[in-house]
């Protein structure tokens, strides 16, 4: 009889867990739709500014901004975007795995790595590892603001201008579709050459008021928009991944309950059979 009660409590607890995962799945699904839309809204700006930078790259200016110049690599920096909360499947783990692989390749070449972390999960993960973390921003919520990111971006940009790092990468999850998110590494600085179509060979912009300030502002905007986009995209990934993870958790709970129910019925049947045979045995003895 004790066995029967045990199974019953277990079914109850699994059912409760299932209710929670089901609710989380639905919350994630509705949030995903919103974040996906927000992600689409940031796309035109990020694309256009990329085209402008592409033009800029092909121009022949009298002033070359340091962000456009390739340097010999002695130390690299990464801006790593992760989620703030867990329960979102393998999203962060995949990002870390790709990052660690990349970092190992640099270290094999005797290049040191600096990290700037966006998102609490990244901070947790690298706390116990032997890496150089120079900046961190956490708890941006589901609607990250550019203003919240500026600080960590500035740390890395200053490091680049002062020559402490010679390359800056951006690492985040790419939203392929609802079922699939992939870690992606992009070079932020030096700004990569982008094919911007057939422009004449030797030309330069007329800069108003002056090239130095203007290029500074444009490149700053560019990098901010890229990091902002990555953060927004990462939120969309988090929600999609959470939805899928919670859905499979709910499905597993259903399977588990079925199995437990079967065990329960068998145990009950065995108990009844035993009781009957005891009664019959008792009656025969009388």
């Amino acid at each position, binding site marked *: 009889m004790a066995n029967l009660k045990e199974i019953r409590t277990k079914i109850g607890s699994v059912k409760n867990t299932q209710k929670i995962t089901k609710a989380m799945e639905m919350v994630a699904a509705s949030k995903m739709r919103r974040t996906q839309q927000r992600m689409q*809204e940031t796309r035109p700006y990020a694309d256009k500014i990329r085209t402008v930078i592409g033009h800029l790259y092909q121009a022949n200016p009298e002033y070359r901004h340091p962000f456009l110049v390739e340097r010999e690599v002695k130390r690299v920096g990464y801006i790593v975007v992760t989620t703030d909360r867990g329960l979102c499947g393998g999203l962060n783990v995949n990002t870390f795995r790709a990052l660690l692989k990349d970092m190992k390749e640099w270290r094999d070449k005797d290049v040191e790595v600096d990290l700037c972390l966006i998102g609490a999960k990244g901070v947790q993960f690298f706390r116990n590892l032997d890496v150089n973390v120079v900046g961190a921003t956490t708890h941006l919520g589901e609607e990250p603001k550019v203003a919240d990111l500026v600080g960590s971006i500035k740390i890395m940009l200053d490091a680049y201008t002062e020559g402490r790092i010679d390359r800056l990468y951006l690492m985040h999850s790419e939203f392929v579709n609802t079922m699939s998110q992939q870690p992606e590494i992009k070079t932020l600085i030096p700004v990569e050459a982008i094919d911007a179509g057939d422009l004449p060979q030797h030309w330069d912009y007329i800069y*108003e008021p002056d090239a130095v300030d*203007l290029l500074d502002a444009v490149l700053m905007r560019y990098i901010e928009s890229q990091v902002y986009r990555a953060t927004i995209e990462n939120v969309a990934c988090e929600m999609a991944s959470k939805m899928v993870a919670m859905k499979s958790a709910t499905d597993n709970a259903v399977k588990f309950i079925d199995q437990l129910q079967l065990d329960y019925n068998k145990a009950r049947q065995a108990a009844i059979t035993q009781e009957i045979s005891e009664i019959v045995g008792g009656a025969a003895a009388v």
Partner: protein
Amino acid sequence: MSTIHVEIVSAEGEIYSGDAEMVVAPASLGDVGITPRHAPLMTNLRPGEVRIKVPDEDDEIFIYVTGGVLEVQPHLVTVLADSALHGDQLDEQAALDAHKLAEAELAGAAGKEDIEHAQMQLVEAAARYSAAQKLKGRRS
């Protein structure tokens, strides 16, 4: 008549995309008019309205921007706006309120940074108000 392609985007999304005969934008050193085959140009924008003359239409399109960057290629004008509003989204009353608020803030501002900030707000509110008023004049 030849045309030039115009794209206006802000961080919140695409605002306008299409061909134009001429674009007038509020550059930081004064308004610039851009017609097709303009020399490559890059400049800051101050708060104000971008006017787009669309071929075969008498009315110009007004788009209000709070600043940003303008890039010109012979065949292409790109406005990277910090924030942009279509002319018909401009609310004259709201603009006037913002103007008053900015003025009040300027009067009460103490430090140098405060004053700069308030002045910037005032410029923005004034530009927004004048854009709204111009639009109103055209409507009536």
